[in-house]
């Protein structure tokens, strides 16, 4: 539904999007993840026809965003980063306006508006002025406006920004439902959001896509050395025993508050948890904690977008970390 091919966007002073290629299929929710200024909003603005691309092309629902701009725009529901609405209007009035603006047929407007308000949990405030609502509600009003015409493609720029945790959970549920039968591209810099909502993640940094894959794929491919975390009661000499275990490459030990804690760095693919347990039993150590440290998506993200690292990941490799077998 969304096909972007070698898209670049140059502003007078900088290259905001640099040769980006990706696609989003129907029934798929793709997360656009990147630090501020990475080019997420610019890419979305090109997709929605707000900005013309400098080079490359983008198609939405089969329509080129430049040559068939009107058709492409009609197929998109767009929630801009600002989530701007007309504050002096009432909620239902605004969503009705958006429906008419999108060309929803006269008799269908009422039903569509009611449905959009329902989806975005706004039915209770339908008659309130938007200016009297909190940021979270305003955000949902803008979202309702974006999906009132039931577009096959949704482009959501930071849809959960400014919401409280309960609202975030509900809006994510809404987005998941919407994603079942349409293509959704959402940008965020909130990592748990990507984990919980998206089928696929594009990590973008300085205008280039530096990694792409499902959250699990990204984690596993970039996991690096597996690490165990363990703790024992009292002060016990664990270092030597642990270091001798097969698959263990290094051990860091520290003692605190009557506990001995260790980080056990393992060789790739090794999982010596059983051995650590048996070692503790054999020595009579009281094992209090034993866990595998999972590399979070956050770690992946930080690794990929940390600019001081000597080698940045090349853009044309789906997932690549220098010096890492992939």
């Amino acid at each position: 539904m969304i096909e972007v091919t070698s898209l670049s966007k140059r502003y007078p002073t900088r290259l905001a999007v640099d040769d980006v290629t990706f696609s989003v299929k129907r029934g798929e929710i793709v997360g656009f993840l990147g630090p501020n200024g990475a080019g997420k909003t610019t890419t979305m603005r090109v997709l929605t026809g707000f900005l013309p691309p400098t080079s490359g092309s983008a198609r939405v629902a089969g329509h080129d965003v430049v040559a068939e701009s009107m058709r492409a725009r009609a197929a998109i529901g767009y929630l801009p980063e600002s989530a701007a609405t007309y504050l002096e209007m009432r909620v239902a009035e605004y969503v009705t306006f958006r429906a008419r603006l999108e060309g929803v047929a006269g008799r269908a407007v009422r039903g569509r508006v009611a449905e959009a308000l329902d989806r975005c949990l706004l039915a209770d405030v339908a008659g309130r002025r938007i200016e009297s609502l909190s940021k979270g509600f305003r955000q949902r009003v803008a979202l309702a406006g974006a999906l009132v015409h039931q577009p096959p493609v949704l482009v959501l720029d930071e849809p959960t920004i400014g919401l409280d945790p309960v609202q975030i959970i509900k809006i994510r549920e809404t987005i998941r439902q919407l994603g079942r039968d349409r293509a959704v591209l959402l940008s965020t810099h909130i990592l748990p959001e990507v984990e919980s909502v998206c089928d696929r993640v594009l990590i973008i940094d300085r205008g280039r896509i530096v990694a792409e894959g499902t959250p699990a794929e990204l984690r596993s491919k970039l996991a690096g050395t597996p690490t165990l975390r363990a703790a024992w009661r009292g002060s016990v000499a664990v270092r030597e025993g642990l270091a001798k275990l097969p698959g263990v490459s290094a051990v860091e030990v520290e003692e605190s508050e009557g506990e001995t804690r260790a980080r056990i760095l393992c060789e790739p693919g090794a999982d010596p948890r059983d051995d650590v347990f048996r070692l503790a039993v054999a020595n009579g150590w009281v094992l209090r904690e034993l866990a595998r440290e999972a590399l979070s998506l956050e770690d992946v993200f930080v690794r990929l977008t940390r600019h001081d690292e000597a080698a940045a990941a090349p853009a044309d490799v789906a997932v690549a970390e220098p010096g890492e077998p992939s």
Partner: protein
Amino acid sequence: MRKLFAIVGREWRAYFLSPLAYVILTAYMFLNGLIFSRIVAFLSAPGAPRERFLSLMFTNTYVWIFTLFIIPILTMRLLAEERRSGTLEVLLTSPVSETMVVVGKFLGALGFYLVLWAPSVLFILFLRAKTSVDLGAAASGYVGIALLGAYFLAIGTFASSLTKNQILAAILTFAILIPVFSVGLFESGSDPARQSLIGYLNIWDHMDEFARGVVDTRRIVYYLSGTAFFLLLAATILHSKKETP
């Protein structure tokens, strides 16, 4: 068409949601009332040229000076506020063209401007009960008011498209309107070419003509082409200048 109506309707209603609109409406009613009392006084005088009273109504200096200040206030918000708040992005990513956005907003403003003049229709109806009123001349007077208003509002819409600062848009509108308003002052002079050029641009004379029931197609062409010119300019600016600096 439905999309255009959506924009016009929203814009028109937006005026009535702001307190400023009611201040302007009240001021206009007050001014119109003042004119009415003058007309009544004028008609009460013995031997008054009755057919001239419509000129009093449509070319009243106070009303037009007041209008000169009102137009920038009516138009400053139109596009500048959309740019500032970010709703311009919503409009321009909807399946509507820049021209439709500009024309829709302009028509909304024109609608409100005509509402300002609506009470004066009542005065004409009142007067008609007591004296003879040339309804043709009255109609042509309102055509003049609508044409002049459209021209001025188009200038304001254009100024509003240039910036996200409403005050700047208002000042710019005012700066363009002043010469448009006062060009007629330079009509005196001997050079006939200059006289005919300025006569073509002299809005006071035009309004007087309209009030006398003279509908000159040259005037209509002048105002309509001026309106179209500034609206197209505004649409072009929206198209080329989407990012807010």
